[in-house]
């Protein structure tokens, strides 16, 4: 019988070769930042950044803890410095249509200059114009116009009054108008006196009054025309006066922006508007008191400049903007409203920029999940990229939430590189269900989870550790400490030959190690500090693991670690709660009897088994059917169960254990209970790799250790998983001392031999398995089941009840 040898201690843990690390502490290292070990992603990012065509935006995907944003930002910051600083953008009032504010592009840094110049211009005019309009010259001319008008009226009415008086008629006021009445000594003649007059006189007075009435009406009807003439005259005077004061100031302001035609055009419009509405500058303080309003209270706001994006104060080069809260408004800008007497009003000054405005001409970094979870943002992002311009839209209007008048600001041309970040699953789902993803995000940068563990890469990761320590303000790490971090990086990678690139997880460990170094008053972080941090992390998260182990040790959960039993085996599973994974043994049992060739997975029957688990069990049927008693129908009924498992079971890592249990039950040979098994199996009986091998081994080791290591205990793992082993120190030590063993198994035959102590057996030249071998026993039992089944209908007295064919 071939004896399978346990793995050596060296195969269980690969220590870091700190002799290759040429530093004492990380303080001596040049920190490396950005894209460590991400050559593929780096090439993609540089390509995406370099290509200027539409649609070549970037989608960066990778594990959530990879800190992709930081890495990409570091690359982009470097690229951005070499690019031109984008233009400033402002919104100004549209004097022809105030609902459609005008966007003006200015060279970087000049927007604020423009805004200040306009503000100063208006300030100056607010001082200069009232003085001009209060000047004696203006007042005299204005008074002359008013006087001319009043004189015209007064003369007309006075002439009428005098004419009336000369004919003994007065003009009187009635509650709502005027009337003419016969009079004597300016007093209205009482009716009795009037009736006493001779008829001729009465008639004459009546005719006079009728004539005067026509004249009164004529004069009254002329008044609006006179008033119009007066207003025109005053307007003309105001224009002339205003122009005199405004022209010089406007020309001075224009001179500052002579190189910017759109600004000059706007200033000209401002000039025209000021001259046309000079009353706003002059009438302040002369108005009747009233409630302030957007129009009346701030008549000068319309000349101000709303600086939307400005280069002043930001570093030269293209902007790199990360929007962490990409609501629609935060993304494409929004329009604010103010409440005025219960009505919401707005104007061009209330237009607020979004991240796309700020990033225009540069790079915009967004978390795809955040964009997708904000209403309208994803659609708006795609629409904006498709149209190549930023259009601020008021979402509340789409929804009918507001019915107030809003603005339609000019669109702003967009020249931007959008970088979206998300995990792979989300990207694959999005790419599958939204065809526009491919249209707008043509460049994919896929971040690696880990990198090869070569001496060079270990040194590189040491520099990365130095970078994190420096960025986070941590103490330097000594070489031994770095060595342990590197080993932990391999454990995080679940691979002795790889190093994790999950920077966030490394940062957590480094930060905690620094804490313990501070606690121990160490100036540098030692290996002991790192180990303490790792132990403390496990200790904090291991309450559930401890309870599980306690239940096993108290035999609430039944797990044997000694002896042998038929149809019973220790399987291994991994549970992950809150980022902490731990392994635990689970008893798997099997019962067999004659039947219709069906292997029943009880977990699946009660819907506790996931599809992959069920697939693993079905593979067992395939294995049995392909290996044993090929000349008779499969006449087996077998049931498999994870004992005391009350939650869901998923994965096929227990399928080899289930097969061992099944073979044990069929062969009626007991399995060793001091061994635990993990590994999936295919239909040919080959053992395949599984995940979480370290946690699984440690889970069984902890139980065995608690009960006392016997020296015979151990775990069967797939041979393909040997490369993944980065076991805990105590496990490695126990194995080195021969108190525990890890067996690498590549076939079912190897495994069953180890578990039963009986050779599995291979078919001889006669096509039969050797007598007494496990395979022979299994095949014989299956033939026996086939015979029982064949004879079942013929001899009723010998049949068994229950299973229906």
């Amino acid at each position: 019988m071939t004896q399978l040898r346990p793995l050596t201690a060296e195969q269980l843990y690969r220590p870091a070769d700190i002799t290759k690390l040429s530093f004492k502490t990380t303080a001596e290292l040049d920190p490396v930042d950005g894209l460590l070990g991400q050559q593929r992603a780096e090439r993609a990012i540089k390509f995406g950044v370099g290509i200027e065509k539409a649609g070549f935006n970037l989608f960066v995907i990778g594990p959530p803890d990879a800190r992709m944003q930081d890495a990409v930002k570091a690359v982009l910051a470097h690229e951005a410095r070499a690019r031109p600083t984008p233009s400033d953008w402002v919104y100004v009032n549209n004097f022809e249509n105030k609902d459609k504010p005008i966007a003006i592009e200015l060279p970087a840094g000049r927007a604020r200059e423009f805004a200040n110049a306009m503000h100063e211009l208006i300030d100056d005019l607010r001082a200069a114009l009232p003085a001009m309009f209060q000047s004696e010259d203006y007042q005299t001319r204005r008074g002359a116009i008013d006087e001319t008008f009043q004189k015209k009226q007064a003369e007309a009415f006075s002439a009428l009054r005098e004419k009336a008086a000369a004919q003994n008629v007065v003009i009187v006021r009635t509650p709502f108008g005027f009337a003419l009445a016969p009079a004597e000594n300016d007093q209205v003649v009482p009716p009795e006196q009037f009736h006493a007059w001779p008829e001729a006189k009465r008639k004459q007075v009546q005719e006079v009054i009728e004539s005067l009435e026509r004249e009164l009406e004529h004069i009254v009807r002329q008044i609006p025309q006179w008033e119009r003439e007066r207003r025109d005259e005053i307007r003309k005077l105001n224009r002339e006066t205003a122009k005199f004061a405004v022209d010089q100031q406007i020309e001075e302001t224009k001179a500052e922006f002579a190189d910017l035609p759109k600004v000059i055009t706007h200033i000209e419009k401002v000039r025209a508007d000021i001259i046309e509405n000079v009353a706003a500058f002059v009438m302040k303080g002369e108005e009747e008191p009233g409630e302030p309003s957007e129009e009346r209270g701030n008549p000068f706001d319309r000349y101000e400049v709303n600086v939307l994006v400005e280069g002043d104060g930001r570093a030269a080069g293209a902007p790199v903007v990360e929007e962490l809260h990409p609501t629609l408004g935060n993304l494409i800008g929004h329009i604010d409203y103010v409440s005025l007497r219960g009505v919401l009003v707005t104007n061009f000054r209330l237009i607020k920029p979004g991240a796309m405005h700020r990033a225009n001409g540069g790079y915009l970094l967004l978390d795809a999940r955040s964009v997708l979870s904000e209403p309208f943002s994803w659609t708006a992002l795609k629409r904006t990229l498709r149209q190549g311009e930023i259009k601020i839209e008021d979402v509340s209007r789409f929804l009918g939430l507001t019915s107030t008048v809003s603005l339609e600001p000019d669109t702003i041309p967009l020249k931007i590189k959008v970088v979206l970040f998300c995990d792979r699953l989300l990207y694959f789902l999005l790419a599958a269900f939204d065809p526009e993803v491919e249209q707008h995000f043509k460049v994919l940068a896929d971040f690696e989870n880990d990198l090869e563990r070569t001496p060079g890469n270990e040194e590189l990761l040491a520099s990365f550790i130095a970078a994190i320590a420096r960025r986070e303000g941590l103490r330097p790490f000594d070489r031994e400490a770095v060595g342990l971090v590197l080993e932990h990086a391999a454990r995080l990678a679940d691979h002795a030959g790889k190093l994790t690139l999950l920077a966030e997880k490394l940062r957590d460990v480094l930060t905690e190690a620094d804490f313990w170094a501070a606690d121990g008053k160490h100036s540098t972080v030692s290996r002991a500090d790192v180990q303490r941090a790792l132990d403390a992390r496990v200790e904090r998260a291991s309450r559930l693991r401890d309870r599980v182990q306690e239940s096993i040790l108290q035999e609430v959960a039944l797990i044997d670690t000694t002896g042998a039993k038929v149809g019973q085996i220790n399987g291994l599973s991994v549970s992950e709660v809150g980022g902490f994974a731990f392994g635990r043994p689970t008893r798997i049992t099997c019962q067999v009897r004659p039947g219709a060739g069906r292997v029943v997975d009880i977990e699946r029957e009660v819907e506790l088994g996931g599809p992959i688990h069920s697939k693993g069990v079905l593979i067992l049927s395939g294995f049995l059917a392909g290996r044993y008693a090929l000349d008779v129908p499969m006449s087996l009924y077998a049931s498999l169960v994870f004992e005391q498992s009350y939650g869901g079971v998923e994965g096929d890592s227990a399928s080899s254990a289930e097969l061992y249990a099944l073979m044990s039950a069929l062969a009626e040979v007991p399995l060793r209970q001091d061994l635990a098994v993990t590994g999936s199996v295919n239909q040919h009986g080959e053992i395949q790799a599984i995940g979480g091998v370290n946690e699984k081994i440690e889970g069984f080791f902890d139980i065995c250790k608690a009960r006392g290591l016997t020296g015979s205990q151990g775990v069967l793992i797939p041979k393909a998983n040997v490369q993944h082993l980065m076991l805990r120190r105590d496990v490695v030590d126990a194995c080195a001392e021969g108190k525990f063993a890890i067996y690498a198994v590549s076939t079912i035959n190897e495994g069953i031999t180890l578990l039963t102590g009986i050779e599995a057996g291979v078919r001889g030249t006669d096509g039969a398995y050797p007598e007494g071998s496990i395979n022979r026993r299994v095949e014989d039992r299956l033939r026996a089941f086939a015979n029982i089944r064949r004879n079942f209908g013929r001899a009723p007295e010998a049949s068994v009840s229950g299973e229906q064919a």
Partner: protein
Amino acid sequence: MTQTVEFRRIVVGLPYRVPPHAVRLAAELARLLHLDVQGLFVEEESLRGLAALPFAREFHPLGGGWRPLDVERLSRDMEIARSSAEKVFAEAAKTLDTACRFEVVRGSIAQTLATISGSGDIVLITEPETEAERITAQFRAAVDAAIRSLAAVLLVPARIARHSGAIVAVATGPGDPSIEVAKALARAANTEVIVVGRYETGAEGPPAQTGAAGKAAGIRQLGSALGNVRERLIVVTRSEQNPPTMLASLRRVPVLILEPVRGDEEGRSSGN
């Protein structure tokens, strides 16, 4: 010697059209000086007589055109005007918490003002908004009656330029009562007093310019003299020859015209 004038009451001769700003001003002034306000709504008998004539009709500038003026319609219109006036008056009184009395009188506005007002009263006259109103018999009679009475006259422009600012006293000398009245008003209103000296020629213009043109020129000069002063009210003592009635419309602020102090009227004025 400075002359002082003591007021007891503001009489508001309410015409048919009641400008709320004038009523409000009366109430404000009354509150500042602790005066009573009496609103007089005069239902003119002469209009009723006119309405009794068969050919009588009235012109409605806004309604556009002529319509017969009969007694019944006139009564109805007067009632509407009275109700409106009373409402404006009551609102101003309520808002400014002033002791107010509203009275309806039949007769003529001139006779009523002449009868009811005396020394210690301020008669408020609102400048007409249109020249058409200015030539009506009632306005002219009301102004004449107010000016002829022993009461001070508060001329309120059709539109007031501002409601805050200094009180300006236009004085012919240090003893001019306008100075003390302006000071009292300024104290009450917590504002400053500006005293403008005025050369008394016997007319409001230079000696070479007398008559109507001379008066107008004189008032305009006074207006110009005030220049950029941002006053809220002007107090001026009426000269013997003519009242500065144009000043209100020129400066667009209320003008309080005081009666000149006469030797036989020392009883209502006191010196200090």
